[in-house]
């Protein structure tokens, strides 16, 4: 294990060093990718070893920063799951990046891009490995800063800089809250290692425990992108290079889930019922509102970013259900809810990574992310289209792919709520079921739009007409993730027990209850539903194979010819006659008009002679998320006012600054003396 850990560090270090020493060029980009792939594969191997053997890996370096207990790495099964997730996505994203970053030659610093990518992967891998607060926060901050600079890769666009600003502000506000949560826990603990925090947690007063949970929820929730802390996500994710977007959406936001599980479930050991109910409520809200905003997006990558908000919501519903069952002392159902949340975490990493890579290939080929300029790409980029379609089906929870398997488990967990004879549960669970169902139905509608408008029909612009297929290494990255989507969908009976075992010893979940079924049909304890994805897939394949045979037996006509699309007698069809993405989403925009509150701007120029002759019509309609304005405008105003006030300190005089320095230093020294 030690050697694998070293190999992981070495891989990422190699990639970063290669980028600094030899940026750009085919070889340079290849070396950067090789580092990421090597580091990722080693991390995945290490994680699998921990997951399968169950022996935690421990590495101590107490001499480093000894004042805060030094660096400590301790990988248990929960940490290994998330470490494995990073490694699992690092390999395809690294491969993909090798060709994708060619587009940045001369436009952005490849030295920075390559080095930051590897450092980002390195620090992100080490977040779930951390065994004490210092290590955790150190790696967390490393992950946040490197990803911030990665978002800024395309600095030539003003929107990117603004997106980076939002991200930086939100992630640091989150860091401050998470730090507060840890400090609150550390007040009664011997040291800041997680083991000591866990031992000291039962001694905390209930209100302190609640405060720690809420701080952790806000702090880690802002990283996870849960509503209403999601504002940075649809801004920052599209701005980053696509393989970085895939990593950010696929794994980085999952670190928020990890943090919440680590603090809420592991360190605090679970809590009162309302913790779970709060998570379910926030999750349901995120799921529905996330997908509703996604439906209105025509920027392909921003659409995907809003879907990350939706899927984080689904994950929170699962975990919230788990916490809720735990508070009622139902270990089997608690395990089911948690496993459903964790399974969706992995699945979302696969299909969202895949979709971002696919969107990246499209953006790479067309030079735009606007769906209204796409169309017909299935003929020009057949492989990318196929991979994107797999991802679209998976995220729409269509059987037998992986999104369905985990959403089925979340549904089953919620249905298991019938085991609790409490009136409040009788309200929460059905509403959560309904919101989850609505979100998945809308997600299917959204991905019909995303795939249909982007890849099908006639090209809507010259750029789409001249599109080209993505290079081999990019295809390879997508193919790996597409296969993972299929495999994870077909093999839940193999994955679920492993996920169950990661919960062993966490909170009050007893290991005995973790024995989820290992048989082919997935059967869940507590909520008795049953299904078997492999048999289902087999059935569909057999039926699809039998159909042409049956048609032949029926004596069906086999000839066919190619003609024009029917145009009501008009000859010649132009792309302007096609349905657009806006038009596709129009019915839903009307249905949910209260939520969207679109602004409309219609101006018609009439002919001077008669108002029955229209010369031109200009129509503009925009949707600004008013919830964001409502929640963020007043703190932003306050910050701006405070900034004006603080600006007075900046007089530009060196003497004044020296004075500040001295005063600050003296105050700190006195405070430190006092504290002792």
């Amino acid at each position, binding site marked *: 294990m030690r050697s694998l850990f070293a190999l992981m560090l070495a891989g990422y270090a190699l990639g970063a060093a290669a980028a600094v020493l030899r940026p750009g060029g085919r070889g340079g980009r290849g070396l950067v990718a090789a580092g990421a792939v090597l580091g990722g594969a080693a991390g995945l191997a290490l994680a699998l070893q921990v997951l399968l053997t169950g022996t935690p890996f421990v590495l101590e370096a107490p001499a480093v920063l000894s004042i805060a207990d030094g660096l400590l790495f301790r990988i248990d099964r929960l940490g290994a799951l998330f470490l494995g997730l990073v490694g699992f996505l690092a390999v395809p994203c690294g491969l993909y990046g090798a060709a994708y970053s060619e587009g940045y030659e001369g436009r952005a610093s490849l030295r920075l891009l390559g080095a930051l990518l590897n450092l980002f992967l390195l620090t992100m891998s080490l977040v779930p490995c951390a065994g004490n607060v210092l290590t955790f926060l150190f790696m967390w901050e490393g992950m946040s800063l490197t990803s911030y600079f990665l978002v800024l890769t395309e600095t030539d666009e003003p929107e990117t800089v603004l997106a980076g600003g939002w991200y930086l502000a939100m992630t640091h506000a989150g860091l401050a809250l998470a730090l507060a949560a840890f400090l609150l826990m550390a007040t009664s603990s011997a040291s800041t290692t997680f083991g000591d925090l866990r031992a000291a947690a039962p001694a905390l007063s209930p209100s302190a425990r609640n405060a720690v949970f809420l701080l952790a929820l806000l702090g880690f929730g802002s990283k996870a992108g849960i509503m209403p802390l999601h504002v940075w996500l649809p801004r920052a994710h599209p701005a980053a290079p696509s393989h970085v977007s895939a990593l950010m959406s696929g794994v980085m936001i999952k670190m928020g889930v990890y943090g919440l599980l680590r603090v809420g479930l592991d360190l605090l050991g679970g809590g009162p019922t309302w913790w779970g109910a709060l998570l379910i409520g926030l999750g349901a809200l995120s799921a529905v509102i996330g997908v509703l905003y996604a439906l209105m997006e025509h920027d392909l990558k921003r659409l995907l970013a809003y879907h990350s908000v939706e899927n984080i919501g689904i994950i929170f519903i699962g975990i919230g259900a788990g916490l809720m069952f735990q508070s009622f002392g139902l270990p089997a159902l608690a395990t089911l809810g948690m496993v459903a949340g964790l399974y969706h975490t992995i699945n979302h990493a696969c299909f969202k990574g895949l979709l971002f890579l696919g969107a990246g290939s499209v953006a790479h080929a067309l030079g735009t992310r606007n769906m209204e300029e796409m169309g017909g790409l299935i003929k020009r980029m057949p492989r990318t289209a196929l991979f994107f379609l797999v991802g679209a089906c998976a995220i*729409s929870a269509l059987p037998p792919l992986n999104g369905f398997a985990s959403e089925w488990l979340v549904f089953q967990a919620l249905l298991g709520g019938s085991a609790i004879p409490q009136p409040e549960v009788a309200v929460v669970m059905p509403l959560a079921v309904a919101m989850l169902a609505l979100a998945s139905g809308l997600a299917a*509608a959204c991905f019909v739009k995303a795939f249909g408008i982007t890849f099908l029909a006639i090209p809507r612009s010259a750029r789409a007409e001249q599109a080209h297929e993505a290079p081999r290494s990019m295809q390879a990255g997508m193919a790996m993730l597409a296969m993972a989507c299929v495999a994870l969908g077909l093999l839940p009976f193999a994955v679920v027990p492993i996920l169950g075992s990661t919960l062993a010893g966490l909170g009050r979940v007893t290991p005995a209850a973790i024995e989820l079924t290992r048989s082919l049909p997935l059967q869940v304890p507590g909520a008795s539903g049953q299904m078997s994805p492999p048999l289902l897939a087999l059935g569909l394949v057999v039926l699809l194979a039998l159909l042409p045979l049956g048609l032949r037996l029926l004596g069906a006509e086999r000839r066919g010819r190619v003609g024009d699309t029917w145009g009501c007698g008009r000859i010649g069809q132009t792309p302007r006659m096609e349905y657009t993405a806006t038009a596709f989403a129009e019915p839903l925009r009307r249905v949910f008009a209260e939520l969207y509150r679109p602004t409309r701007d219609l101006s018609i120029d009439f002919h001077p002679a008669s108002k029955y002759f229209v010369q031109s019509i200009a129509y503009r309609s925009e949707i600004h998320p008013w919830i964001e304005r409502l929640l963020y405008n007043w703190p932003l105003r306050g910050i701006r006012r405070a900034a004006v006030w603080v600006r007075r300190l900046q007089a530009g005089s060196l003497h004044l600054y020296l004075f500040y320095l001295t005063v600050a230093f003296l105050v700190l020294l006195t405070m430190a003396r006092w504290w002792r």
Partner: protein
Amino acid sequence: MVAIIGFALGVSQAALALLLAPGLVGLVRWLKARLQNRRGAPVWQPYWELAKLFRKEVVVSSNASWVFRAAPFIVFASTVAVALLVPILLVPLPFDGVGDLLVVVYLLLLGTFFLSLAGLDPGSAFGGMGASRAMTVAALAEPTVALAIFALALSAGSTNLGQIVARTMSGPAAVSPGHLLAFLALFIVTLAETGRLPIDNPATHLELTMIHEAMVLEYSGRYLALIEWAASLKLLIFFSLLSNLFVPWGVAAGLTAGALTLAVASLLVKLVILAAVVAVLETRIAKLRLFRVPELLSVSFVLALLAVTSSFLLR
């Protein structure tokens, strides 16, 4: 041996459904015609239509891709797969472990998903319009379906179709107000999902009103036959879900000849009753404007929510 018999029974049950399905559509059409003082085409007319379509050649738009050609097969296969999973004649179901009610719902969504993609593929505005509306209706119907499943699962203790039927059959105590509300909710959803009035008009070819017909406008020949057949099978599946999940009496519990005959007879009676109800409804009410459809679906949603809460509280 038992496994083989079970397999054969499951397959033959689905085959029977497949054979009956066009007749069911014909029956609804005939009843409607009679109610409207028309003579109407015979009940077996849809069979002739299918036979004719199978003999015709296919015309595919030059803009279309493989998605357009694959969609009819995917739609048909997923609908037949559903027919293998739902209780039509007998319980316990041979394929009960393969999929539960949630699988049924998402398999049907798989078909709608690909049909909508195929609607967009030829690049005509009709197809796009149909696809957009079909997905809107499907998405808005989803919460109701999920809640109706929840209500059924609450009283049966399982989402598995066979167990739900067995539980309801075991006694009249299993029928509750929750059941009734869930039935009403699911009935409205049935109208929406199978493209009947007042949500969609299966007899229209006016571009402003159609949903399903607009989506499949570009299809012809065997592709259209497959889609139409699958659509009629979907109607039959929803009808047998409505009848067998809520009123399961008559469903065969054993493999005796008498029980099976009774099962076939009771199935036919239930289908005729439901077809009559739909025909009367379609004669009595006009189609809703598209933007009034969500209101109807929210009515069904509220019914389903009440069904769940009452099942919760009356346990």
